[in-house]
């Protein structure tokens, strides 16, 4: 994948993340589940910041940043606390793969930035109930062993 295409794919992923986190935050209760509400709010702010950074980066390459879609499919109905956590986890897992692709497709500062974002996605997954994995953000081939 060309570097610009990777950046655009990452931006598309962040557009989706911002939209989904917005819904998840609205569905969570600050009074009943303050911890989850804080985690979702923090994630929303972080991904919005990354989205903005990507738009600046892509514009700086004399390209038109990919636009957000009107809406995105939620990973699940997002009604219960468990569903909210599962949806957030899925967002971070998808983004880890996207950032892994950006690491692969870019160099220098863009790669370094993607590495930091991949780290963050990997750790944030744990807060939403994920488990540590051997190679977050890496496409893997099962060997059966």
């Amino acid at each position, binding site marked *: 994948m060309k570097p610009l295409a990777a950046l655009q794919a990452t931006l598309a992923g962040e557009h989706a993340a911002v939209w989904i986190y917005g819904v998840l935050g609205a569905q969570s209760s600050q009074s009943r589940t303050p911890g989850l509400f804080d985690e979702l709010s923090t994630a929303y702010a972080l991904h919005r910041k990354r989205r903005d950074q990507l738009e600046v980066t892509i514009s700086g390459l004399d390209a038109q940043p990919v636009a957000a879609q009107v809406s995105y499919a939620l990973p699940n109905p997002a009604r219960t606390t468990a569903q909210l956590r599962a949806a957030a986890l899925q967002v971070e897992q998808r983004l*880890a793969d996207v950032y*892994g*692709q950006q*690491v*692969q*497709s*870019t*160099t*220098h500062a863009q*790669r*370094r930035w*993607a*590495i*930091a974002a*991949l*780290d963050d*996605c*990997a*750790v944030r*997954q*744990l807060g939403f109930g994920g488990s*540590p*994995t*051997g*190679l*977050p*953000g*890496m*496409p*893997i*081939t*099962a*060997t*059966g*062993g």
Partner: protein
Amino acid sequence: MLGILAAGAVAAVAGGCTTSASGHTAGRPPAVVRRPRGVSPDVALAVAAIARIGIVADLLHRTVAHHRGLRHQLAGLAALHAAHLQLLREAVPADRRAAARVPTGHRGRVPRRQQAALAAAVQAERDLRPQLEGLAVRAESGEFARLLAAMSAAVAQQLAAVAPEKAVR
């Protein structure tokens, strides 16, 4: 533990190596060859990564040997390093494997107090992450860069479980 093979990344490194058996061009005596020729820069990075992960893995091993109470707490990191080392060794061509060994002489002392030993191990892991990330930035193969970045992210996840307050940069 992993049950996986990052085949593309490993192949990207190993396939990038063009080392010849002789290490020099025909008609030129070996004496004028100043460094191994044709070795992919990423092979050199893989060798460096093996050394750095190996040093930390060795420290973990000795820490657990001295402080059995830390065995379960550090088991995930130890297994992770073993799996990563195996992947990296597969990336190094056979004729470079002698260089891909954990260096001696870098063995940090294991503190006598358990909590201090845990802190030292966590610090070593924290120090490893920017080293792996630096190697990822330098990698010529994008796939290998991704592999090294994924290894750093995996260490970050384990650190979040072992020492949550120290996992975030």
